């Protein structure tokens, strides 16, 4: 393993030379590219990347342009994990056979949206983790099929209005609770699983570097506030992200070796979930009188999860 990049503070981090380029076609204010930049800039090692079909893919490799300064592959919606696993296997084979062109060990990173990760690519991802490839899988979790115009995924939270679970005269929108991907990936016995948010860049970098140093498959669930589908102004991406982490709707934690859970961020002042919901158009309908009970339930669910995480941490399990 090569030396870890030393990033003491933001000024030092800002000397990084990005390997992700502008004039990609992501929406103004898109959190995906903030996350991608933080992940890629966390290391100076060579990178081999893959992406699942989705916003990131269709916006960064539209012929005749690529926005990637490291080798990158996209196959389909469901198999970004297996694509990078295949490349990792080839690296292993060529290294054993002495046929690598350069004697360097790149990091293998796959990106997928929550649709690609929680839903259609779930089996492929599980297979890769069971087999223990040396790879990092980063889920850009914006809780919706944003690339195709806002359909629900199994990451869409209760009460969000998505185009296939719209709020209407007799519906409050999405009925199912969000799938707990971190628990599922940790249950694979992965050496490192973590939830990150781009607004907490230092926490993010630390986790990405821990992931890069781990031996085996690493799962990173990256909260990606979506200006288009969550319905907030593009300049508010970081403000909304702050509300998400500070309301504990997106708690930041890590699970080591499938068991040991550490909370990595404790907000000084916890923001009420109601404020987080109120800031986004996708939850607008919840503020009608008949649905206000859902906001209360939201708060209870977030509190219960936070309580659970704290008990896990305390018990060191």
């Amino acid at each position, binding site marked *: 393993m090569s030396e870890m990049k030393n990033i003491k503070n933001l000024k030092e981090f*800002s000397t*990084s030379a990005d390997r992700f380029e*502008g*004039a990609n076609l992501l929406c*103004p204010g898109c959190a995906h*590219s903030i996350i991608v930049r933080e992940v890629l800039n966390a290391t100076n090692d*060579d990178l081999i990347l893959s992406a699942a079909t989705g916003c990131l893919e269709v916006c960064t490799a539209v012929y005749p342009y*690529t926005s990637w*300064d490291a080798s990158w592959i996209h196959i389909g919606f469901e198999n970004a994990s297996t694509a990078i696993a295949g490349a990792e296997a080839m690296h292993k084979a060529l290294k054993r056979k002495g046929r690598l062109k350069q004697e360097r060990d790149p990091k293998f990173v796959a990106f997928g949206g929550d649709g690609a990760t929680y839903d259609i690519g779930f089996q492929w991802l599980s297979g890769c983790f069971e087999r223990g490839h040396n790879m990092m899988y980063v889920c850009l979790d914006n809780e919706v099929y944003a690339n195709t115009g806002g359909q629900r995924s199994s990451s869409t939270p209760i009460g969000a209005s998505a185009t296939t679970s719209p709020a209407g005269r007799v519906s409050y929108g999405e009925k199912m609770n969000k799938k707990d991907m971190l628990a599922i990936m940790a249950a694979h016995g992965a050496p490192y699983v973590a939830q990150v948010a781009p607004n907490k860049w230092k926490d993010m970098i630390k986790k990405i570097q821990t992931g890069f140093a781990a031996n085996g498959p690493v799962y990173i669930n990256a909260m990606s506030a979506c200006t288009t589908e969550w319905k907030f102004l593009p300049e508010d991406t970081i403000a909304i992200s702050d509300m998400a982490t500070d309301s504990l709707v997106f708690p930041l934690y890590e699970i080591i070796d499938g068991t040991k859970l550490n909370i990595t961020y404790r907000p000084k002042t916890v923001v009420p979930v109601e404020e987080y919901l109120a800031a986004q158009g996708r939850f607008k309908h919840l503020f009608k009188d008949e649905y206000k009970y859902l906001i209360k339930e939201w708060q209870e669910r977030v509190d219960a999860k936070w309580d659970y995480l704290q008990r896990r941490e305390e018990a060191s399990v």
Partner: protein
Amino acid sequence: MQKSGWSEFEIGAMLRSFEGATNNIAITHQEDRPYSKSNSFTASVADWRIVKPVFNKEYCIDCQFCWIYCPDISIISRDKKMIGIDMDHCKGCGICVEVCPTNPKSLLMFPEQQDEEAALSEWPAKEKKEN
């Protein structure tokens, strides 16, 4: 880019990020990279903007919040200093202005057509903290 005919490109629709060999790209800044014409760095999304950020160096403390949170690699920082905005790649989202902590802000949004000198001349004064 000019649209070429079927016989004029690489098989498999493969694109190269750079012309010729590169190494240490992770520590080579944009101005020193041999970008290929297929690298989106060579393209522009300037026409997406209806508003643009203007940078006022006078108030900047080089905190680099704008650099870390810019989705479009459009905050140019070198040697720990914020030195300007890449107007070919800025889409005008306004995040840099929102996260700028100085008082007054060192970055503000103006209409795309606004003259930069004029924008700087009408920069707001330091705001007094309420209560």
